[in-house]
């Protein structure tokens, strides 16, 4: 076993749950579906609720099914730092909370959107941490930076009444673009996982693996 193989095995084991890309693809698909629905229903009553329902309707079942598939096909791994996801969730919640406050009270026309700036920082973290094996995550970072930068160019001119709607619809299109990027990186994460785990010589029967030893 050479150093490259060793590094891949360590990465795939350590980030086993993160690399289950099919689940991430479902999240990406949910974002795309949500953004498409948003273009039609956002101005209506309960528009946002419909968008959230469509997103959750795609993302949640997809994640549950993919998790089960990975468990059956590739097995189970308990992470070294089992408290990590909870800590990360709290940090992300706080960061998005701050972004929301900044967006509501401080950010104005001509500034990058704080929500997408936070997303860019969050998606840059695994890219830096797992470089160079997951260098393709640059797609996600690039998408968030692009959306954030393009938002600066959406100026409140000509149609003052429609300004809010124009900006909101731009943000929802941004979510659609982000969804596409998440789908791409999800597929590439899945490919990394599958190519590192060469697979089973014999198919497993129902619950058979448990009594093999």
């Amino acid at each position, binding site marked *: *076993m050479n150093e490259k193989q*060793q590094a891949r095995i360590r990465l795939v*084991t350590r980030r086993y749950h993160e690399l289950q890309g099919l689940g991430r693809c479902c999240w990406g698909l949910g974002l795309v579906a949500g953004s498409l629905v948003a273009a039609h229903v956002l101005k209506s009553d309960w528009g946002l609720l419909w968008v959230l329902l469509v997103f959750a309707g795609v993302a949640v079942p997809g994640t549950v099914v993919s998790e089960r598939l990975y468990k059956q096909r590739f*097995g189970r791994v*308990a992470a*070294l730092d089992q408290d990590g996801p909870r800590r990360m969730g709290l940090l992300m919640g706080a960061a998005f909370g701050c972004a929301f406050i900044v967006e509501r009270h401080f950010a104005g026309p001509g500034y990058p959107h704080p929500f997408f700036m936070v997303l860019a920082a969050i998606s840059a973290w695994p890219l830096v941490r797992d470089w160079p094996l997951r260098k393709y995550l640059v797609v996600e970072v690039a998408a968030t930076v692009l959306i954030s930068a393009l938002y600066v160019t959406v100026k409140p001119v000509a149609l003052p009444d429609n300004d809010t709607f124009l900006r909101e619809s731009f943000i929802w299109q941004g979510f659609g673009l982000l969804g596409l990027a998440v789908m791409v990186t999800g597929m590439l994460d899945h490919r990394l996982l599958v190519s590192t785990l060469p697979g089973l010589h014999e198919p497993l029967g129902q*619950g058979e693996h448990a009594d*093999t*030893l």
Partner: protein
Amino acid sequence: MPTPFEDLTALNRLIHEPARLAILTALSACDKADFVFLLNVTGLTKGNLSSHLSRLERGGLVLIQKEFEGRQPITYVLLTREGREGLEDHWTRLDALKRATKVWKPLRTT
């Protein structure tokens, strides 16, 4: 003056075997992994993996635990403290060996 190759004999054979090294390397990056995951990592047959795990368990490098998820029994494998230290020591020795062979020049005895 000893050659770097003499250090090769000091390597722990229980760890150095490629399949066992892959198992230990994977286990060093997690708290525990199940039998199916290790089958996937190593590409071994179930019988071979069982045999390697038994050897590692006898050597005190891994622990094997049987747990239940609902009604389904799962076999988990985890690295012991000795296993973790042994693996780290093994990689340190291999790195040192690699460095030593790069600078080593054979003596000419003509």
